[in-house]
């Protein structure tokens, strides 16, 4: 397919993805906005003043980047896992499989859909955060934007793989419930790992989400528990590994061919 045709195919998949999550905005956009607002009210407003300062900032300011990142991770992941599994379940994935679209375009289309939903929800949660902490001064816009995009890509890829292997709707909620949520909560969203005993600090360093949350926090506040370069390298390595695996499985026909 010539490049302009590939672009039309890619644009079609993205448009379809945006249309899908905007059509069901009350299930895709609204819950994230409500639950993140509750986090700010409960942890930031009610409990935060009792905790005091963390990392040189008020508790509310400290947790805001983590909460924004949490919403981006959850939404990028669940958008792709549910959309791709839904396409398999209803079998309209076959519309793409019988068309002359390369697999990498299909993957790029779904990942872009996940990234866009992650960004939209992240933006809404940021606006909500501003009601509580005011207009933030961003330490490094480059780091903020690049970490947000890379993290969305990474978790969209995770969602894609989940959607590919899922056999029923329960399967697409198992990973978010039993893997993603614990890793996010233990990834330094609500605390600095400096507060943990040494052994738990070391264990926490094995959690990839810790690097994303801290890199994002560094981009906004200029403070981090880990090195930013390490965070970028880890995210990029994960993206490389998951995208290679996704393309390999697509070519192999896992979950999409008999």
């Amino acid at each position, binding site marked *: 397919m010539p490049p302009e045709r590939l672009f039309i*195919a890619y644009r079609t*998949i993205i448009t379809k993805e945006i249309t899908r999550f905007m059509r069901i905005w009350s299930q895709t956009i609204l819950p994230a906005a409500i639950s993140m607002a509750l986090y700010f009210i409960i942890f930031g407003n009610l409990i935060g003043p009792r905790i005091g300062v963390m990392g040189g900032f008020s508790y509310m300011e400290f947790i805001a980047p983590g909460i924004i990142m949490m919403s981006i991770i959850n939404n990028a992941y669940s958008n792709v896992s549910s959309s791709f599994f839904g*396409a398999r379940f209803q079998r309209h994935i076959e*519309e793409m499989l*019988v068309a*002359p679209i390369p697999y990498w375009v299909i993957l790029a289309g779904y990942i872009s859909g996940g990234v866009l939903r992650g960004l939209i929800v992240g933006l809404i949660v940021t606006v909500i955060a501003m009601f509580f902490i005011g207009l933030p001064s961003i330490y490094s816009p480059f780091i903020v934007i690049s970490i947000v995009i890379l993290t969305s890509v990474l978790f969209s890829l995770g969602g894609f793989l989940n959607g590919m292997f899922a056999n029923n709707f329960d399967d697409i909620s198992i990973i978010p419930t039993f893997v993603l949520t614990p890793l996010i909560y233990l990834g330094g969203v609500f605390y600095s790992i400096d507060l943990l005993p040494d052994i738990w600090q070391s264990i926490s360093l094995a959690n990839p989400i810790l690097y994303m949350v801290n890199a994002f926090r560094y981009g906004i506040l200029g403070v981090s528990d880990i090195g930013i370069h390490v965070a970028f390298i880890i995210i990029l390595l994960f993206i490389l590994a998951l995208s290679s695996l996704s393309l390999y499985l697509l070519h192999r026909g896992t979950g999409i061919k008999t």
Partner: protein
Amino acid sequence: MKALEINRLEKTYGNGFQALKGIDLDVDEGDFFALLGPNGAGKSTTIGIITSLVTKTAGSVRILGLDSGTHATEIKARLGIVPQEVNFSLFETCLNILLNQAGYYGIGRKQANARAEKYLKQLGLWERRNQISRTLSGGLKRRLMIARALIHEPELLLLDEPTAGVDVELRRSTWDFLREINRNGTTIVLTTHYLEEAESLCRKIAIIDKGSIIEYGHKKDLLAKLHSETFILDLASPIEKLPDMPFLDIRQIDPMTLEVVINREQNANAVFEMLSEHWIIVSSMRNKTNRLEELFIRLLDDNGPENKGQHEGQHAS
């Protein structure tokens, strides 16, 4: 050039079930070809392999002169598929389903809109273009899949049971539409349960059973193999008991109806004469089944006793 060439095609599923046992099949360009067989015979597996949705175990498939293993992308651009089961998003409008499909083929929005309008109008769906697809009737869903398969104007169209569960009127108008696109040069390969459909539409026929092709050729040559036909005779007046007629294969269904098997060597007039000798007057007669169905059932019965009864659901309607 052949539109489709299948050589020694085999498919064994993960559970060990051998769906195709080395089938060979040729379809000429411009042909209207029927692949018939009972449930589980291997029809949909064959279609799945041609469309690359099912991976083959062995053998080769060439489509429009191109090998499916090495030219998959070029083939996909020239191939259209109407699957057996509904496989579009049930939450989108009819128009969007077509526009999205056009997009997957890299067709620009302006051309996609023009083609969508053309095919939705031809298939009687234009007035419903903004209707959510899940609210369509079963017959209209199948028509929408035909429109979708044509949006990139394929040279070879594969139809897997395109009129299953569709009412008679809609089925007949779908036939007219398919005849027209075949006349305009599109090669069509059809699988169907409705043998009347295959007899009415197709020029060449293959019958597949238990993963093997058991009959293949021109429709008229196949039908010529039918040595006898079964007719239903409606009587002008009731009879109590059928008199003994040793030279006729005849049985009484009810006081007003008889069933008679007439061999090709027999003369229908002679049958009527024999009946009239016993004061039995026939007011009308009709085929018990269509001729292709009769041949189909006999071939399947010859292919294995376990087939008996399995194809009872296959009917001309």
